[in-house]
């Protein structure tokens, strides 16, 4: 990991001192275990601030939207797909962007690690080390270990695009890619009866506090005025009425359909731990099955929901 950090710093230093970009967006060390803070640097001397480790799950493409400066951004596979999306959707010009692509072998799930520490040690996590495929967690008086595959974020476990799809600079060696996503998590819910599904989502959303962290952490959600904030007409109520909560989540998922790269930022950001990816995953599966489409893989293709082809499947129209 430290090799990646050094590589990122060197690239940032070079880009800034050669005047190729005005700003480099990356991470700096957080103040809590398992957290890093997105940051920017403008001077080559500041490059030593940048870090990289297995707690860089936040999607930095979120900080690139509508920027007018020339920006370099550190991007994992999923982030790079969002950058492709941004370019296709005119949120940033390709020539203003330098993608520092990082070959990623998955980010750790801080909630999973924290709850296991609480279970096994009754303590908060003090430190996490990730080396050679093993994660070592120090929590209170206890130290426990597990193979890193067990502790990856759910989206990282399923990821098929760990290597950046678009990059100007590459950090790290390309990693092996999974070739299939069995969508078993979506199929499990699809198999439920209507009533069971209703109860499932009702319970899942019961703790939602309408903070919109999921929306705000998502690079795709960049509407100047989100539909939940419109007042003329007012589409969605602002209280804790479960109908309004459901409306927000369902509609947001639909607005991301065909564009979501399953980066997991939404779930990471949610303060109450709602698995909101259940909605977007379903729509991702539908897009793949109906149109053979995965978002953000190529600058040259219009997204599935942007285009019409006469032989688009239409057997769901009755």
């Amino acid at each position: 990991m430290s090799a990646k950090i050094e590589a990122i710093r060197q690239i940032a230093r070079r880009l800034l001192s050669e005047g190729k970009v005005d700003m480099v967006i990356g991470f700096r060390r957080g103040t809590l275990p398992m957290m890093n803070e997105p940051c920017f640097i403008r001077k080559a001397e500041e490059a030593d601030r940048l870090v990289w480790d297995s707690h860089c799950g936040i999607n930095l493409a979120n900080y690139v939207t509508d920027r007018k400066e020339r920006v370099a951004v550190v991007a994992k596979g999923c982030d790079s797909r969002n950058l492709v999306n941004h370019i296709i959707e005119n949120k940033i010009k390709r020539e203003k962007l330098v993608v520092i692509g990082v070959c990623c072998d998955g980010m750790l799930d801080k909630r999973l690690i924290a709850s296991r520490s609480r279970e096994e040690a009754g303590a908060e996590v003090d430190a996490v080390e990730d080396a050679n495929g093993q994660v070592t967690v120090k929590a209170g008086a206890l130290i426990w270990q597990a193979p890193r595959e067990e502790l990856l974020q759910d989206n990282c476990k399923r990821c098929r695009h760990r290597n950046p799809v678009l990059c100007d600079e590459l950090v790290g060696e390309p990693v092996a890619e999974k070739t299939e996503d069995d969508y078993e998590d979506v199929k499990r819910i699809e198999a439920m009866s209507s009533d069971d599904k209703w109860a499932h989502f009702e319970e899942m959303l019961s703790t939602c506090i309408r903070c919109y962290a999921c929306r705000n952490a998502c690079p795709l959600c960049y509407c100047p005025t989100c539909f939940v904030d419109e007042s003329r007409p007012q589409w969605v109520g602002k209280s804790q009425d479960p109908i309004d909560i459901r409306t927000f989540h369902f509609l947001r998922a639909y607005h991301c359909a065909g564009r979501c790269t399953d980066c997991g930022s939404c779930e990471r950001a949610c303060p109450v731990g709602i698995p909101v990816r259940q909605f977007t995953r379903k729509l991702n599966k539908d897009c793949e099955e109906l149109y053979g489409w995965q978002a953000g893989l190529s600058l040259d293709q219009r997204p599935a929901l942007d285009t019409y082809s006469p032989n688009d499947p239409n057997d769901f129209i009755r």
Partner: protein
Amino acid sequence: MKVIHIHKTEWQGGLDKARSGYGLYGPVRQGQDDPVFRPLGPGEFPEMSFKNTKMSPKELVHPQSEPLFRYTLDPQAPDHDILKEVQKDASPKALLAVRPCDADAFLLVRRNFDTPVYKDPYWVTAYESFTKIGLACNQACSATAFCTSAGSGPFSDAGVDVLLVDTGDAYLAKVITEKGGQFLGACGFSAPAADGEARIASLREKAEATIASFVHTDKLREQATIELYDAPFWEDVSFACINCGTCTYSCPTCWCFDIQDETRGKQGVRMRNWDSCMYPLFTLHGSGHNPRGTKLHRVRQRFMHKLKYYVDKYQDGIQCVGCGRCIRLCPVNIDIRNVCNMMNGYTACACAAS
């Protein structure tokens, strides 16, 4: 002050006695997650060994969504288009096992809702209906707690009517107010504790020593407001922020709200909902002008409000109790301790030079 000794074996029995006179509220664990403050059903008891809740108990007094008035728009009704106040439940309630930081937070918020000129009848009625039975923290709830340097502390009793101190097999109940004494009386707890005050003092010292995180606030009052406002570090502080509002929702001293009318058919409700200065719409004028149109403005507003404007207005202490929730829950790890120390230590000329 009187200190009463309550054996843990008699705790639940005592609460049962009090149920006839008080609605009981307290933290209830749901599965593996942090407990949540809510009304206790018959036979339900509060969780007494927890660190702190994820969301503060402020929503018991200031619900996230609260109806203020009802109205009918039916032109046939004699009082159509006239708002009717929704009566609040003023029956006596007990807030059990509230941590001292959260109890102190209510006092900071009260200054906003209970002023010499205007009194918010909903908040004040709800707050005054509660007898607050605090539970002191024998050790820091988290590495992010900085209560002792934020005007509160693990054994702070300014905001409670009774402070319970867990001694292992018993609770020492320090009676702070008459209201607290009445509640203990309703439970039937009356045994005086031997050396109560001394034992509490010694546990307090031990507890305070476990708080490992601090902020510096000594220079905040003298800082020139406009200089802090114009400081160059705000861009760096606000960059990572995604304006999600989680900090404001989880913060026990945040109280901003929005007022909305919602009508179904001909009947409607004027309600208030939690709102957040983090949201772009918060300050949007009808004309389209937005004084806080950028993320930097909004992030700066939050920290200036908590750490400077409140100090300017009330001249004593920051609008923060150091519970650490915003630090733990922020999805991008913006840390109020760093910002507070930056603001406290800021000197305009020094920054200009660097």
